């Protein structure tokens, strides 16, 4: 069985208290800006970082790995769902796009 090559990931989750999207940084913080997240290029590291996230149930809920790509300003989402999570809904200027 050939395994698909590993593509870069970020660890993301929802904050326990506010419920909004957060991303794991290199120095073990949770950021509300994906650009500050740790872009993980290695599969074993990704698993490890996910386990670390899951071990913080009093801070975040539902941690998972999401595909991301490097840009000049930091990691950026690939899938549209992940892109929406960085912004907020499209029908009102609520959520992250409003600086909340």
């Amino acid at each position, binding site marked *: 069985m050939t395994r698909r090559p590993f593509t870069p990931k970020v660890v993301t989750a*929802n904050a*326990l*208290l*506010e*419920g*909004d*999207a957060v991303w794991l940084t290199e120095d073990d913080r949770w950021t509300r800006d994906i650009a500050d997240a740790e872009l993980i290029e290695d599969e074993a590291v990704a698993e490890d970082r996910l386990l670390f996230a899951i071990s913080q*149930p*009093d801070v975040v*809920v*539902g941690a998972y790995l999401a595909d991301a790509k490097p840009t000049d300003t930091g990691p950026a989402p*690939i*899938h*549209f*769902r992940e892109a*929406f*999570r960085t912004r*907020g*809904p*499209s*029908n*009102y200027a*609520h*959520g*992250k796009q409003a600086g909340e």
Partner: protein
Amino acid sequence: MYTYNEFDNAFVRERVAQFRQQVERRIDGSLTEDEFKPLRLMNGLYLQLHAYMLRVAIPYGTLDSAKMRQLAYLAERWDKGYGHFTTRQNIQYNWPKLADVPDMLDALADVGMHAIQTSGNTIRNVTADHFAGAAADEIADPRPVAELLRQWSTDHPEFQFLPRKFKIAITGSPNDRAVTKAHDIGLRMVRNDAGEPGFEVIVGGGLGRTPMVGQIIRDFLPREDLLPYVEAIVSVYNLLGRRDNKYKARIKITVAENGLDTYRDLVEARFAELRPAFSGVDQELLAGIEAEFAPPAFRDASTDGYEAHRAANPAFRAWTDTNLTEHRAPGYAIVSVSLKAHGATPGDASAEQMRVLADLAERFGHDELRISHEQNVILPHVHKSDLPQVYATLRAHGLATANIGLISDIIACPGMDYCALATARSIPIAQEIATHFDALKLEHDIGPLKIKISGCINACGHHHVGHIGILGLDRAGVENYQITLGGDGTETATIGERAGPGFSADQIIPAVERLVMAYLDLRDSADETFLQTYRRLGLTPFKAALYPDQEKRHAA
């Protein structure tokens, strides 16, 4: 209107107190998410894409002004100043903070509301015809029976862990406005040959992954047999329903796999066992509930002023043409208030709008309001002489859009703007269709047309029963919209046919326009509706309009 008795109140308060402790224990880390999740879902609290979401039950869609004002208060105090009315006649708050939710639930309990059984594998909020108690075509108000079902199902020890969620819809009118054929159990009031009212009982309907039109399991059930019969249906399902596969767990699959006749035999046998245990207490209870649903004291007044105002004011006339329905009391009308202003989010109302609606209900509407599954608000009892004033107030608050039943009166689920299960967005598609056809000034010429949009296969937006249904999917990382045609959610319920390959987000509006233009071309007169034309001609000419390039290729 039904008011909670002391038992109900104590029960709801106790649940809020329990949940407050559970939230505290979740926040201080003594409960894990795995432990907490079922508890929060039992209290209507979901975690979505950008925030928590609180789903509040509005039993059978009925509210009074005090409740509506409290919903407005919640929106302002703990949310972002608005609420979203859903196809399940519930209201959802999209931005609560976890720590605030117990306070929100307490505020709801102050007006006899709650969020219990809006989630989980239980019997959910019973939905009803939104014109209940007012419609001219109604045999009897179905809400006392809906309330009886609510009391019977709330915290029913046998039915807290069904194979899957269970939804009951009820209408007191032969004209089905409650989509009863797309529910686990549908109850439609009919009369037997002797002229007595009873229920046609429909079972195994549902949308979602495997859409099915419900089948009639009993064509006439006397009213006094209703509770034991419904209990028999649920109890057979509880034993027979599949628990091995979530996608095969709904009663529609149980009925399909076992066959309607087998299912009916089992239900009748169980019913025969259960019936004697129902000694009539349920009927006494029902009589008590019925008294609380007594119709208001309708007033006898002239409608001359109304007719004169209609004649003199074209905008008012257009609104009365689309947004009123015949009332059973002389001189009265049922007012549908559109929450579908062109370009607005279907089903959203601001706190201010909710208060305006509460004030109107109190002043002109015998203090009654309804939420429709089509995501509009109903003032069920307005005397026609008051309509000019009601209209002027609605208009001042962006609530006078004259589009009920027209192309911009779109059902749209929250889709990927909010919902964690979504595969694509639905709200922007609804907004664009509405503004597009409004700009073309074609809406009234097109006439009755129901567009329904879901953001995933779960079909909360009822797309299968839209005359035009739109389903948002994720095709290789791009939003893609699939069209179904010819669906119908009324007593002639039909699941729409898939038209063909889906369209990208920027191609879906032109595709809908081609469909509508084809209809305008094909209809035999302005009186033939889209659905009638579709039923007369079938899919072929509409498919040709949707996929013109393929047609050309075939012709070449």
